């Protein structure tokens, strides 16, 4: 079992493996998982809408589309805006990046504010039957993700002020940007389900 001469190296070349760059893979995998929770909620929404004997709570015939539509346009536009912010970062235009990034955060915050206004004007609650429950669950969870996105963006903004953070920071910005697009896509599906399919 043991070789006779333990000092023979046999022209040995040590093998190496890269240990960086895993974060993006991990984050993408995580996002796929997150999307399945939403997917489960969407399926639940669809099934309940089609099979429940009574869908809308009493006195409600649907939900208004106008304000949510404005919110939607703002949110979708913010996805384009964040793309330009990323491009600015690539070009190493730090102040360009910071200002466009901040604009994205403001658009996201407007969306949250708009959601809050819509909630406060609705006449049904979480407990109002199946529709009430699903409406607040879906929009609430989505809103939670939007707020998380804004907080993460704030973190990235703060980090952009740290000296010499450029190399490490780019990965974080890419991830948060991806998260923002994810939040956007979820909203588009949600909007279709709740507001368009009535």
């Amino acid at each position, binding site marked *: 079992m043991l070789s006779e001469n333990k000092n023979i190296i046999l022209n040995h070349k040590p093998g190496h*493996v890269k240990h960086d760059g*895993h974060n993006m893979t*991990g984050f993408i995998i995580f996002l796929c998982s997150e999307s399945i929770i939403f997917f489960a*909620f969407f399926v639940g929404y669809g099934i309940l809408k089609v099979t429940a004997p009574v869908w809308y709570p009493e006195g409600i015939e649907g939900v208004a589309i106008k304000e949510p539509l404005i919110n939607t346009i703002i949110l979708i536009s913010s996805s384009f805006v964040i793309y330009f912010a990323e491009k600015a970062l690539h070009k190493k235009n730090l102040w360009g990046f910071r200002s466009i990034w901040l604009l994205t955060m403001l658009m996201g915050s407007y969306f949250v504010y708009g959601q809050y206004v819509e909630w406060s004007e609705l006449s049904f609650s979480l407990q109002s039957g199946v529709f009430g429950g699903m409406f607040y669950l879906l929009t609430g969870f989505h809103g939670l993700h939007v707020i998380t996105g804004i907080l993460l963006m704030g973190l990235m903004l703060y980090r952009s002020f740290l000296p010499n953070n450029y190399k490490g920071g780019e990965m974080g910005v890419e991830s948060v940007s991806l998260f923002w697009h994810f939040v956007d896509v979820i909203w588009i599906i949600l909007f279709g389900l709740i507001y368009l399919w009535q």
Partner: protein
Amino acid sequence: MTTTNYDQRLVKTKNPYPRGPNDWKRFFSFNTDAKVIGIQYIVTSLFFLLFGGLLGMLVRGELITPPSDLFDPTVYNGLYTMHGTVMLFLFLFPMLSGLTNLLVPPMIGAPDMAFPKLNALAFWLVPVFSIILLLSFFVPGGPASSGWWSYPPISIQNPLGKLINGEMLWITAISLSGVSSIMGAVNFVTTIIRMRAPGMGFFKMPIFIWTVLAAQLLQLLGLPALTGGAIMLFFDLTFGTSFFRIEGGGDPVLFQHFFWFYSHPAVYVMVLPVFGIFSELFPVYSRKPLFGYKFVAVASFGITILSLVVWVHHMFYTGTPLWMRNLFMFTTMLIAVPTGVKVFAWIATLWGGNIRLSTPMLFCLGGLFNFIFGGITGVMLATVPVDIHVGNTYFVVAHFHYIIFNTIAFGIFAGIYHWFPKFTGRMFYEGLGKVHFALTFIGATLNWLPLHWAGLLGMPRRVASYDPEFAIWNVIASIGAFILGVASIPFILNMVSSWVRGKSAPPNPWKAIGLEWLLPSPPPHENFEEDIPTVLNEPYCYGLDKPFVQDEQFYIDKSYKRH
């Protein structure tokens, strides 16, 4: 019968931890080394195996007589619910996470997992949700008592009307368990995809890695559905929503869909790593290549994909339409095919081998034997007419315990014994191991084999009392359960005393092929560190002229160097 010849110079070494600090305290800290985290998971889960086993013995104590004479039925309901929950979420999943943590980095030649801090965080969630779950015994009204499925409306009845109740804590604990598992899954999948040794393409990976990858992908795809359902259940229970509450127009069967969409793949998450363990151990103890490596590897993914489309077979009689039952019967039957491929491959691996019946091999053989039986009863359950008769009876209980305990737990024991020398640096006591196997096999068979007949005759499951005609089966089963309880004694004795004062273990006591066997026992903090072997072939080439890695002798010699 099974001693191996190893280097006598190593037997007397006092300190088997030359690299890592020989400090027991590292197991109680936020340590990011996957090997430490693995052992943390494993030991924690073994405590819960004992606790879950105790609950199981209490259940069987009640069931040894037809009337409900040991506990109040509400207590019985809480006990069996917690038995199932503890066994699944506090023993099985953490145990498998632990074995995976321990084995994946060395087996693929990685220094650690892709996200070590996330790994440690995922582990430390386990004590958190375990405590939450155990606290539920002490809240007014007792713990969750609606079975581990927690179907509404029974699970959301909340008789005492309290905000903090057993069911609420149960849902919280299960959700946190899901979070921990998803963290683990992200980690494992990233590690396996990105951190393999040079030369280790997918078709040179050990089968254990294949099955872990398959299982963790299932976790990623399935767990969120359960989490979604659990959130909705929580809202119904705590905030009075009506997702599953008929008073508001909800649908109880919808919960069942959410629940089983995950929980069916969950059973494959549990069994796939154990299939991996069997695939690793049979070649070693028969000293033969694994038969049909490529087929076995691909079959793991066949099982994964199919397991996502069979969930309704848990709902054949719960209010699903006939077309759905027929469809899912067909998909369920299909899963038998890749599973059969694996079983036949193992038997073919044994054929013509040089069989060594050491403790790990005994557990593998016992597990395989039981699995063939359990798999056949599974195919019976897949056919709708039979399932309508025996569903929700003790036939199902017997079937799934045959898989969960008589196959999966056997495989886990086999794995623990097999890799014990590698990761603790000590040899275990073979004699005690064999006693453990004998008692476990006898106890497990006595416990669950008779219950098949109780179920066929119509004894429902989850009952605290039953008609007297079922008595004989239950008496035999309870005796088996108590034997199983006794069987844990040689196991605990073996583990503790071997780790503390067992013989020092050489790097490769079983003369097995694998990257982990090219490391010292126990491996240093970063496994191969900067010098990772280049893999040339898959690790099953016993007797073939196909070397495993380049410069194999160099690494073998290096593994003997202790400093």
